[in-house]
């Protein structure tokens, strides 16, 4: 199977995903727009975006130069420090359908569907949201 590796490894440029904690300080120091990608383990469309869209050269370049990018597992069981608060997970064990309070808050009244892609301006106000799979063209439009 080793012969497959070169094939799987191409496209080394990767998105510099940052954590919410890092985002906090980054926004304070140098405000920028933020791209938030909310996903789950079981969401095939999310994995497809991670594997095929967020590895697209043009997309990677645009996101890394213009955005802070956060990839957030909506079912994460970690406590997250963000915006001067601690967002505590509901349970200590990961479970399908047990969403992190921060995911619920970020999506507000909207349905919890995945992937959810949110774009914030440099003061972290929501500019745009898409709650579906975006191919590279659609994501490029979304980021414009």
């Amino acid at each position, binding site marked *: *199977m080793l012969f*497959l*590796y070169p094939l*799987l490894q191409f496209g080394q440029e990767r998105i510099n995903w940052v954590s919410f904690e890092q985002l906090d300080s980054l*926004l*304070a120091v140098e405000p920028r727009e933020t791209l938030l990608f909310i996903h789950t383990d*079981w*969401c*095939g*469309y999310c*994995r*497809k975006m991670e*594997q*095929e*869209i967020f590895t*697209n050269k043009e997309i990677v370049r645009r996101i890394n130069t213009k955005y802070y990018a956060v990839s957030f597992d909506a079912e994460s069981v970690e406590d997250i420090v963000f*915006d*001067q*608060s601690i967002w505590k997970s509901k*349970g200590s*064990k*990961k*479970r*399908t*359908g047990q*969403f992190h*309070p921060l995911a*619920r*808050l*970020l999506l*507000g009244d909207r349905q*919890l*569907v*995945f*992937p959810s892609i949110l774009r*914030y301006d440099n*003061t*972290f*106000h*929501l500019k745009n949201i898409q*709650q*579906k*799979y975006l*191919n*590279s*063209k659609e994501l490029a439009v979304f980021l414009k």
Partner: protein
Amino acid sequence: MLKQYTLLAILLAGTSTIYAQSPLEGYLFNKNQEAIASGTLTIKNSKAATSSDANGYFMIKSVSAPKVTLNISAVGYRSMTKVIAMDTLKSPLHIQLEEDNLNLDEVVVSATRYGVKRKDAPVVVNVIGPKLFNATQSVAMSETLNYQPGVRVENNCQNCGFSQVRLNGLEGPYSQILINSRAVFSALNSVYGLDQIPTSMIDRIEVVRSGGSALFGANAIAGTINIITKDPVENDWQVKSTNSLIGGKSCDNTVDFNTSLVAEDLKTGATFYGMHRNRQAYDANGDGFSEITKLRNTTFGTKVFYKPSDLDKITVDFSTVNEFRRGGDQLDKAPHLTQITEQLETSSIVGGITYDHYSADYKHKVSAYGSVQKTVRDSYYGGLGGGTTYADSTLASNSYGKTDDIALVVGGQYTYNFERDVFTAGAEFSYNNTQDEIPGYKRIIDQQNKGFGSYAQYEWKPFATFKTLIGARYDYTYVDGKYSLAGLNRNSDQRFGTFSPRLTILYDLTKDLQFRGGYARGFRAPQAFNEDMHVTSIGGNQVFVLIGEDLKTEYSNAYTGSFSYNKNFGSVQTSFLVEGFYTDLNNQFVNVMASEKDGLIIQEMQNGAGARVYGSNIEINVAPSSWLSFQTGGTIQRSQYKSLQLIYEGKDETHDVWTKKYVRTPNIYGYLNSNLKASRRFAIDLTGVYTGKMIVPHIQEDIMTLKNARDFVELNLRLGYTIPVHKDFSIELFGGVQNMFNAFQKDFDKGALRDSDYIYGPTRPRTFTFGLRVGHFH
């Protein structure tokens, strides 16, 4: 403290346009008097908004109106609205929020798919998915179906391995098997088809017990088994090798693969799957005659889609099956030189096309589909049967047969989504032509079926807690069949229309407790069904099913009612279902066996005087955490003829056999499925099936006796270890033992004169399995 930026993108915008008056301030707290931080407060019809701080304190600086409506929401609490008269406001407000537990029982549906949440479905849908295929180490679909309440798969023949699915105790022909919701299983295919569907092509199997929806065919009296094939999203692939040793001596080796490719823009995609299985025959009692059939099977298929636009989708599927199966004795000799051989070489090709179109607002959906299936079968049902005469030898040489079967389905469906309700209507035409010929027995089945079905259904949701499906279907059936056997000729020439109303309701009694009820009417026209295409051997003679004279159509009325209870206790998720069912059959078809005559045994299909099948299904699911889950369930039922039913005509009246109870139908049966994910890499599955006591007919020397078969507990253990070599490449090693306590029938007949139908209980003895799976999977 003041926020630099609020999370909800709610702005304290536009304050400059409002002339300042009194501030609105207060505290948010819960019932334990603890402060609620990060609650949001907005004033209706204004842009004023704020959020509470760590002490629960909030303040809106300037409120202009004398009376305002304040909306308060906080994560984990129920939202509330409060009307506040500003002039009477003296001190800060104290607002207590109630905790919100509703989100605990949230059911998840994948983002861009239109699945109905299981909890919202008006009929009880049981889903069998890849987890269970793995846990039971199944390579063919027939091996997994046992793990649902009310479902039982049984092997009916030691020679050819004919298996059938019984739903709620009713035989195979009372259920409808669908592939991607289409009825493409013809009468012939359903005989051995269950073994021919590899689990690698299946995304999930949806089992609906009892009728209920008008969308299902008229013969879906006991229920529907809907096989949903994989609809690809990701670029995945896997190859799996499964190797078993049946009863310590017979090998069963399978290699299967599946792969999917989907373009990044989701406009085109394809899945490919294939399986090759080679199973040796198994002889349980050392008499040289097989109890489990030799099987060699190669399946290949593909499903391709293309989306010309976001609103249109064309799907094409294609599959082919080549199967060789043989049972009896001396399996390496030509069939006619053996005592008993049943040998079938089946080659089948299926192709289909579906077109789906959505309107721009996604409210209208139109689908059109067509599917064709062509099967050719070379058969041998016969042998010397213990005889040594010239006539025996001549008959044995003439027992080769040939079957041609073609089935076609075309149809269309329209769906309109109202705000809450859904309307569905459709029409479908089906055609099936079967020709089966065995010259040696002067046996001919020449049958043509045409059916036109139309249906309409309205899903009405007048309240949030109540939902009903009201529907009906009209079927026009045409059967033209000629059946000959050993000089006897029968015809079925039927043309008639039938109206079948269907109704189901779903009522949420409380947040956790739901009631479902349903009524369905169904029918079966007199015709050759799947078991009639299969020939068995008893006492060295062949048994044929022959359709009777002047048969009437069978009608049925089925009623179901169920309560389901879903609740979470802390992190423990539980669900409990208890369901009652009652099916009333009129003119039901019964195969009455006659004693041997001229080396043939004829089973004549006759109308019975009615029967009742009733009982209850129970299902318990407990998931203490995401790494441990238990599912168990069972069925307690009675299947009875309304009056004594003749099932065997002996040489004289004293040898006739009458019964009130259905044969081969246990009153109690159940299953267990438990999965433990010990670590990210290591998984343990323990599964089991209980088959209760039942009566099984047994024929020796032309005398039928009804034997009491014992009960069986079949337990399977599987261990799996996954090695994530790379993020796109994993290896899984698995192994286990099926039927670990070797609960297997002990009293098989021996030799050429055996009753090959005398087989019951678990389908295999203790079997060790190990295998390897490699690929990009999740």
